[in-house]
């Protein structure tokens, strides 16, 4: 049976990071396809000295750094809030 809405929590990897919503047209227009919407729901967390997130952020010698995947420390700037 067709399930028009599948939530991320209901799906198995690698399809578990988005909601899928399928909408089927009423059929009045034979050229109209169905609509599939994938809702990724991504949250961006803007990390800086005012919003630190160890171990990604490192405070060393009075300066803030971002540690990358290899462990290198890159000087960090604050985001400008708009």
């Amino acid at each position, binding site marked *: 049976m067709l399930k028009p809405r599948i939530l991320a929590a209901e799906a198995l990897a690698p399809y578990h990071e988005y909601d899928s919503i399928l909408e089927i047209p009423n059929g009045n227009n034979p050229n109209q396809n169905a609509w599939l919407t994938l809702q990724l*729901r*991504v*949250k961006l967390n803007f990390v800086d000295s005012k919003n630190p997130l160890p171990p990604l952020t490192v405070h060393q010698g009075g300066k803030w750094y971002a540690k990358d995947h290899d462990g290198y420390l890159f000087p960090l700037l604050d985001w400008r809030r708009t």
Partner: protein
Amino acid sequence: MTDISSRCSIGAALDRAIPKGIRATSGENLELAICADHAKELLGFGLLVFYNRPHCAAKRALPLPDVGDFRNRIAARHITAAGPMSTGTPHRTINVVNLDYAVSTVSTASGATKTFPQLNGRSFRSDALNYDDADLFRPAWLQKDIMF
């Protein structure tokens, strides 16, 4: 969105602004919706091809600038920070750091160093959860000169 990439090229240390349309607070739910007409693009490259390389998959899934209203079903990519899809818990949280592009040498805690002619989208090794601002404004996969 502010054209950050052109300003980065001069190597000046920038206090970059959070992209217009994205709220400054870190607790907002951002969503990317792709309508069926463009789903092939996402499924073909963003989720299937790159899923064996999780760090790339995450980058391909990065929200891109808002190009239209979700309801008109024309635009390929959408961001809504407070729109009809803003409720609910996020499926993925990506941390984004703002790097100082004026530096050319970085080091580890153990003393190993690495020198760059100029920082670019591949200098900072991102992973699936932690991005640098280049991933947000000028992803490495869009920079032809530093393609994989």
